[in-house]
């Protein structure tokens, strides 16, 4: 049913993250699958940190969706973005095509609007390039 494509490697996604990391105040960026696994991350995060961010990106995005559902009764609202503001800065998650999200962390004194806009530009490009394919039933024991 679904066509098999090679899984994009982390470095293949650098072109998505680089323009974001050039923006003033942006510290980290991660691409995560909907089920919380790491697809790509910026160099400032080591692997363990990036994997934790990927898991919590999925959690935050799904929670934000369920939160909207709880208020509206809409079972599958389409989220534009989820923003978490703290003394540490802004954590922003934007859905990026099927089963994928883009997360960015930025310093507290940054232009949130500008970053959010650039994220939308990048996810539009990312969505054209890839999405995380749904897992097919395990082949073990089948002809």
């Amino acid at each position: 049913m679904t066509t098999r494509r090679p899984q994009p490697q982390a470095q293949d996604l650098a072109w998505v993250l680089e323009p974001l990391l050039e923006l003033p105040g942006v510290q980290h960026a991660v691409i995560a699958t909907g089920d919380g696994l790491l697809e790509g991350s910026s160099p400032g995060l080591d692997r363990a940190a990036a994997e934790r961010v990927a898991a919590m990106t999925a959690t935050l995005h799904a929670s934000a969706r369920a939160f909207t559902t709880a208020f509206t009764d809409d079972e599958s609202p389409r989220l534009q973005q989820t923003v978490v503001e703290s003394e540490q800065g802004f954590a922003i998650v934007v859905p990026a095509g099927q089963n994928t999200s883009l997360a960015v962390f930025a310093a507290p004194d940054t232009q949130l609007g500008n970053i959010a806009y650039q994220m939308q530009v990048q996810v539009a490009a990312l969505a054209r390039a890839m999405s995380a394919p749904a897992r097919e039933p395990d082949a073990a024991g089948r002809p």
Partner: protein
Amino acid sequence: MDSVPSPEPATAPAAEPRPGQVRYLPATGQTLMKLIITGPFGVGKTTLIRTLSEIPTLHTEEVMTRSSVGHDDLKGLPEKATTTVAVDFGRLTVPGDLVLYLFGTPGQERFFPLWQDIARGALGALVMADTRRLADSFPVMDMVEEEGLPYAVAVNRFPGAPAHSDDTLRKHLDLAPQTPLVQCDARNRRDSIGTLIALAEHVLTRLPEDD
């Protein structure tokens, strides 16, 4: 109905608020209890909450992607296509006006940082287990014990999974004598209610001692 004198203080809101009036929790004689439904990946936590809830459940199910191969083991779970990434939520009222709020956790270790937050304020935990991978439930039992939560174990029976007596299961799971163990099919409502009643009774007997 509304002619029955209310034992509640005068400040309790009317049962049927006027439009525009702020509604608080209904003032009733109900006992509210938050419980968490936990256990490793694929043991049937989400299924159990769906089976039991009397209100539309809230879920944070996400499609399992190809990246999860090698992380999330689907052996013996041919129909599983999605996984909980944050929380499941449902509610069940049981006889005796006991209202159980059910919070389901994700099962994979990568989501464990959430665990304490989901468990905050819970009075007890249902730890689910699958006889094909009993040991997978140990890390979760450890977290529940660290949190000091009373818990019961629900062994969810899957077709083709080895069947064991309660005694054997208790031994394998190294359960304390007072910890309830119930075998169930999480898709069956009667079974599932049984697991929660066992847990709620266990929690209620524990409460006065803890005061």
